[in-house]
């Protein structure tokens, strides 16, 4: 339960603390109807009482509040689940509140009841609250026959999180190993399919067009032409800072473009046809991965003419 607020020393010389508290608390006789309700609560059941008009009042009263007539002696078990009708968020709970963290006061109509009772809902945050939300009581470990035997109501389970994780040890195959070794040397290695006369980069040992074995290694230049590109404006913690340019770059001597980052130039100045060169990280910082190329930056050469049809253009 929340603790009492610290008692502050009087902030004014003529200010004094004054407490009105009947020693031991007031005693209240419940009468038969409220008494039945509280007795059932102690046994972790919630009951209402039926009116002459056949409505079920929860919490029960000795009378029908609409007509003033006495209720019938019929008690009806309701809930324990119910539906939130309206709510107000309490962001700073006071000491007498049922929870010591932010919660909602809500009117809750329990299943089988025709009226709503007021209770606390422990929902985490106001975004979780909505009229129509389904809740159930959270009972205290020890019950004594008071409304606070229900500590609060809590949302029904509508979502679970499923942590799923697979962990692999990844080892590059022979072709990628060969490519990455040369990346470490500052060289972009390709392979030429003899049948198609096409140079693939990164180096690979099978031709995706004809299926033949690629046996000839072929170094390609670290300069090339931007065939096309996107300017990415959606931030992602795993990606470069936005805006960044992801470009298809046809390296000189290659027949298939590769996707890479373009840097060293404002994003909106990147052009199709722009000539670029790889910016390598210093040899001592290389890790034999594509991260060894920081990005591709403009060479300053005149743009290539794409209208004639660049091999692999627009890939």
């Amino acid at each position, binding site marked *: 339960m929340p603790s009492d607020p610290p008692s502050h020393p009087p902030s004014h010389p003529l200010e004094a603390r004054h407490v009105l508290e009947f020693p031991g608390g007031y005693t209240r006789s419940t009468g038969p109807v409220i008494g039945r309700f509280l007795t059932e609560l102690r046994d972790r059941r919630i009951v209402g009482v039926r009116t002459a008009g056949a409505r079920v009042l929860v919490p029960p009263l000795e009378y029908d509040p609409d007509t003033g007539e006495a209720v019938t002696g019929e008690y009806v078990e309701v809930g324990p689940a119910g539906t939130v009708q309206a709510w107000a968020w309490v962001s700073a709970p006071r000491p007498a509140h049922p929870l010591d963290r932010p919660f909602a006061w809500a009117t809750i109509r329990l299943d089988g009841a025709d009226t709503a009772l007021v209770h606390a809902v422990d929902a985490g945050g106001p975004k979780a609250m909505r009229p129509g939300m389904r809740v159930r009581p959270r009972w205290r470990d020890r019950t004594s026959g008071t409304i606070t035997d229900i500590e609060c109501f809590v949302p029904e389970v509508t*979502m679970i999180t499923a942590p799923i994780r697979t962990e692999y040890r990844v080892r590059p195959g022979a072709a990628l190993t060969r490519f990455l070794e040369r990346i470490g040397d500052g060289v972009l290695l390709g392979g030429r399919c003899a049948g198609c006369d*096409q140079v693939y980069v990164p180096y690979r040992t099978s031709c995706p067009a004809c299926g033949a074995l690629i046996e000839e290694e072929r170094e390609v230049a670290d300069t090339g032409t931007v065939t*096309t590109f*996107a300017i*990415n404006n959606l931030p*992602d913690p*795993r990606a470069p800072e936005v805006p960044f340019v992801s470009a298809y770059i046809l390296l000189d001597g290659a027949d298939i473009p590769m996707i890479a980052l373009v840097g060293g130039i404002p994003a909106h100045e990147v052009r199709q046809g722009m000539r670029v060169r790889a910016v390598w990280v210093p040899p001592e910082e290389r890790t034999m991965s594509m991260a060894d190329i920081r990005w591709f930056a403009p060479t300053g050469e005149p743009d290539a003419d794409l209208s004639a049809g660049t091999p692999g253009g627009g890939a």
Partner: protein
Amino acid sequence: MGERCAVIGVGQTRYTTKRLDVSIAGLVREAAQRALDDAGLTFADIDAVVVGKAPDLFEGVMMPEAYLADALGGAGKPVMRVHTAGSVGGSTALVGASLIQGGVHDRVLVVAFEKQSESNATWALSTHLPFGASLVVGAGGYFAPHIREYMRRSGAPDHIGALVAVKDRRNALKNPYAHLRIPGIDRAMVESTPMLWEPIRYLETCPSSDGACAIVLASEKAVTGTPAWIHGAAMRSEPLARAGRETVSPQAGKDCAADVYRQAGISDPRRDIDVAEVYVPFSWYEPMWLENLGFAPENEGWKLTEAGSTALDGDIPWNPSGGVLSSNPIGASGLIRFAEAALQVRGMAGEHQVEGAATALGHAYGGGAQFFAMWIVSNRKP
């Protein structure tokens, strides 16, 4: 093409950002039950079930077809799963149809779904292996350069993409199942939204949706209700990394269209087809696919869009349902195209019905525009 096959039932869920009120099984059952109701059948009448969805990493449920087999009434029956990336919904319909065309079964339930709210598609599509350089570009970042290249080659004016975005979202207002509803959308609104992956603006891209779509396919002797007859069915694929690959207008798409048109006896798609539901997840893919599918000469697809030919009241309406731009439960998006094509020729498309539609194209593509699936359906028996 083997035995005759018809769509006799279609069921969809109302597409939305988050269907938090149902499990994955509940979601697919909702679509399946509606398709069965449409056909006047029950699960007991079904011979086999074909399930399609995009990568398992989207929901983190490996082999969801195994989990869903009994939820879809598949106990004791053949159940299989199809996966061809974004085109999977279309491919799933075609695999289902092939079971009937091949004479194996008489009634097949086809269901495709995605519950994108269970994770994040860009995350699921951007799982970078070590040794590469992470750019985390997702689908938008992947397709944006190809759109840019299309714009350069065709000389299309910049506003064509916005026109498609407006047209499809206005159509969506006539479709009770559509996800995005933007009353009053116009070109200025689209053009005022930020560039996500330039040249793709926010309102020129598809939403992330939860949803499922189902169809019931029947052999000729098992037809109940109103059939949409399949006149052509084709799939094609091509390698992603091949020197000289044409990515603006992929050869696999052209080949797939030629095949499906040949089967259906279509010589001029713009003239012979009454309505098309085509996979357009980014607005510029309408003019690009108009060319790839032979509705317009190379570099001139945008002129059809600009002239309003693809509008609901145009001479060749494209995506009267609102298309992928308005609803995108990825794994189901292709099947929705196929199902909407069937609804049109059955005369059951409601407010977005194209009057007198007799022949319709359903189209889907996926991966890096490397997988294609298409069918032609008609209200006439082949």
